[in-house]
């Protein structure tokens, strides 16, 4: 019986914002119905669930829509029992929120601009900007992980989700343009962390093959 507890996720397979929501649900052992959106032909459900932004991801829980990926992740963390996404200590929580916001505000925009850049100059400029953000995140990893495998410590946490959900795009930048935005020499800690992230149980099957991201990027560039 369709119920008040049903969970649906509207997403796009290569979207870091959708990926992080799906991994969070996996961390909690929550089963959900996944609906892949065609962003050139958005579904009625998407448009009515997120009329303000008309974007993925949307989580629909018992019929109620929640939008904005980090808002959704915090909601999932608060509502479902199981592995904690945010740490329990207030200060650690604030630090986690800070770095997750940093990923979305300072790393993601230049990375996307890099992938869509038309000229060599623009690509170079955006690569530099992205690499600067990655350098900050490398330092942050050192501070947050305290020597443990993830930003969240022993297991995946909030910042891991924020950054880890972008890995297929970082890989795409290398495959398509020969530029390593995740660079083993410049950011060794993050390079090692990335391998652990994609191997984590909760991430398996959610982080897509780079091939899909490359195809998506080519289509966007053609438009």
């Amino acid at each position, binding site marked *: 019986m369709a119920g008040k507890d049903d969970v649906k996720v509207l997403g*796009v397979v*290569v979207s870091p914002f959708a990926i992080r929501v799906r991994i969070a649900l996996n961390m909690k052992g929550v089963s959900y119905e996944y609906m892949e959106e065609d962003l050139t032909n958005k579904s009625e459900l998407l448009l009515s669930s997120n009329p303000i932004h008309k974007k993925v991801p949307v989580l629909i829980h018992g019929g109620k829509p*929640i939008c904005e990926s980090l*808002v959704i992740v*915090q*909601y999932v963390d608060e509502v479902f029992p199981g592995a904690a996404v945010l740490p329990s200590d207030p*200060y650690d*929580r604030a630090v986690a929120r800070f770095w997750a916001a940093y990923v979305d505000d300072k790393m993601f925009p230049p990375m*996307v601009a890099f992938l869509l850049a038309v000229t060599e100059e623009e690509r170079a400029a955006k690569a530099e900007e992205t690499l600067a953000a990655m350098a900050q995140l490398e330092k942050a990893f050192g501070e947050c992980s305290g020597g443990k495998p993830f930003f969240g410590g022993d297991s995946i946490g909030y910042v891991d989700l924020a950054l880890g959900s972008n890995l297929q795009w970082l890989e795409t930048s290398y495959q398509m343009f020969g530029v390593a935005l995740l660079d083993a020499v410049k950011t060794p800690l993050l390079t090692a962390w990335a391998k652990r992230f994609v191997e984590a149980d909760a991430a398996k099957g959610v982080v897509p093959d780079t091939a899909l991201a490359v195809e998506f990027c080519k289509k966007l560039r053609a438009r």
Partner: protein
Amino acid sequence: MEKQENGSEAPAPEPELKLYGSWASSYTHRVQLALRLKGLEFEYAEEDLGNKSEALLRHNPVHKKVPVLLHRGRPLAESVIILQYLDDAFPDTRPLLPSDPFLRALSRFWCHFADDKLGPAVGAVFASTGKEQEEAVRQVHENLAMLEAELREGEFKGRRFFGGDRVGLLDVVLGCGSYWLAVFEEVTGVRLVDADAFPLFHAWLRDFEAQEEVKETIPSVDRLLEYARGLRQMLLALAAGAGDGGSTGVPVSSAVDAPVAAAPPAPAPAAAAVDI
């Protein structure tokens, strides 16, 4: 200083909470207001944003911005993050976020809206003229209409404040910023909040501004007007100098963290245009 029982001296009292801010920054006001609503004492240090202190740069090396809140010497940055921290760290004080998870999510969603959509649109009105300004005004109205609809038909329907009977997180975030609307209207001569077009938003803002703690926090209209006039002059001069009527980003961001600083040139377009 009293000697404690174990023979050591009590340490000199450090302020438990210290806020670095700027008098015209709505992000700073959010934190001041939140602290007052929670009845938390704090020390305040005014920053000259044209000549930032060594302490500020040390405590917020990543963004170099106000507000920064020190709690027992540990720095916190980003106003909405600080507000949520206050709820977490001071659980015995009046909560800013509601307890229901769905309402919490909704509050957070609209905080993002305030900072990603409404704020920049208002800033764009202030930083532009002519056709560009017309488009920015249209954006502001579109955004206010969304808020109005939420107040009229959404989960906040029938409430005096987004937080219910009392001011909460979303009220603080939206409210500390919304007072610029009237100021910008005065300075640019452009109508932004029509009480007829946005009656619920208008009523909410009036009730918000009437709260004691809000009156204590928001600078006088005269000071805001003077400040806004000066800023507008500078922005227009820059726009004229730039010739393409486009980006006025750099000096504004270095001067102030008011909503105007969010008036967007460059970086967002690629990401915003791409749904991934």
